[in-house]
């Protein structure tokens, strides 16, 4: 009984501490930014780089970073992947997008950097971009014959201009919000920080009044609310679970499996990451708990990269889209490259 209370208490404490520290300064601005990206930025402008006749090299580059704009919500990732794979630029860029998407969106970057430290946050984004391109190129190389045969019975992609233009006003608005996020989470003293944040918020309010239609602002607020409703409940469960893990898992276990930056430890981390299911962003508090229990930074990055990129349910969905053989090949590549990324990172730091 006493044990149970201790465990639940740890989960509860994690939740309270989390709410106080991270919600206001990090997640609120990040949700507004994600909503703004969804509302203000033209996705067609990005999608045209994924068309069947798009420049291949460019498609890989765009795929590796476009998660920032396209993967705002995890429910859009799989249809987009399927679209790029079947209708658009083919398996390589599709895989690149699939692997980097969960790591490169604004919520994931802001939240990882905030909770796990700037260094690991940057390593996650950088690792996701570089290794997504490598994995994409390898998949395209392995299946190059099938890709060449696919060209004949192509489906006509449905791409029309969505009426949005990405002009200076929109970029200015987004930069203002990113500035709020950076200022609010920066390590500067309160008397300087909060007036600066207030100034930036005033800027956003003025910008939304003068630069945008009322209708657009309404959509933006609505999208932000929807995203928060979708993600926050799952996130709270994740934070609570992370608290439980901290209380239940003996540090000696963590230390013996992933306490040192060895190839084996990184392999264990990326392999378990591939099998585990993390709802959007929940990987971050859970990895934080594991780090506090003694996990090394290398395996932490391996888990961060492999975890959100794959899970058992997503493997099943992928199998339906591209077949079992290609899915198995992808899983193996994800495990290998996430292990490699973690190991390299662990060696540098």
């Amino acid at each position: 009984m006493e044990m149970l209370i201790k465990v639940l208490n740890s989960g509860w404490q994690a939740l309270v501490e989390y709410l106080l520290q991270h919600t206001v300064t990090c997640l609120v601005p990040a949700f507004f930014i994600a909503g703004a990206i969804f509302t203000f930025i033209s996705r067609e402008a990005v999608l045209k780089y994924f068309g069947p006749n798009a420049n291949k090299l460019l498609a890989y580059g765009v795929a590796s970073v476009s998660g920032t704009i396209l993967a705002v919500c995890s429910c859009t990732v799989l249809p987009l992947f399927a679209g790029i794979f079947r209708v658009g630029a083919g398996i390589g860029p599709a895989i690149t997008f699939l692997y980097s998407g969960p790591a490169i969106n604004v919520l994931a970057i802001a939240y990882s950097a905030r909770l796990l430290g700037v260094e690991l946050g940057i390593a996650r984004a950088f690792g996701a971009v570089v290794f997504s391109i490598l994995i994409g190129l390898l998949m395209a190389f392995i299946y190059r014959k099938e890709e060449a045969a696919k060209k004949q019975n192509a489906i006509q992609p449905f791409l029309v201009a969505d009426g949005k233009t990405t002009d200076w006003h929109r970029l200015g608005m987004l930069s203002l919000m990113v500035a709020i996020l950076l200022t609010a989470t920066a390590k500067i003293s309160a008397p300087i920080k909060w007036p600066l944040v207030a100034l930036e918020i005033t800027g956003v309010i003025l910008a939304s009044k003068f630069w945008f239609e009322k209708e657009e602002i309404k959509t933006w607020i609505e999208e932000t609310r929807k995203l928060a409703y979708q993600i926050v409940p799952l996130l709270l469960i994740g934070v609570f679970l992370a608290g439980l893990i901290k209380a239940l898992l003996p540090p000696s276990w963590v230390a013996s499996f992933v306490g040192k930056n060895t190839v084996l430890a990184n392999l264990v981390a990326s392999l378990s990451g591939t099998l585990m299911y993390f709802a959007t962003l929940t990987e971050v508090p859970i990895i934080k708990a594991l780090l506090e229990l003694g996990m090394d930074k290398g395996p932490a990055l391996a888990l961060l990269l492999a975890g959100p990129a794959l899970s058992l349910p997503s493997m099943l969905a992928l199998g339906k889209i591209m077949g079992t053989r290609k899915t198995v090949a992808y899983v193996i590549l994800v495990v290998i490259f996430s292990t490699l990324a973690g190991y390299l990172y662990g060696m540098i730091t």
Partner: protein
Amino acid sequence: MVTVKILGTGCPNCRKLEALAKEAAEEAGIEAVFQKVDDINQIISYGIFMTPGLVINETVHSSGKIPSKEQIKEWLLKESQS
């Protein structure tokens, strides 16, 4: 009589689009059959990248966003006449 298909894997926007399209058909007085397509391979066979997608009489009219009710009415009228 038109056939309206809502393409999506069950995200909140798909449900919203379905409700909106039903309202539009009712207000425009057009008899329509609604169908939900949630199989990802079928969705892709229409050539769309972003869900939700709106297909009326096998023609894709929108993808990746929720069009306005007026816009949906216009498409419904056009499709019901052809």
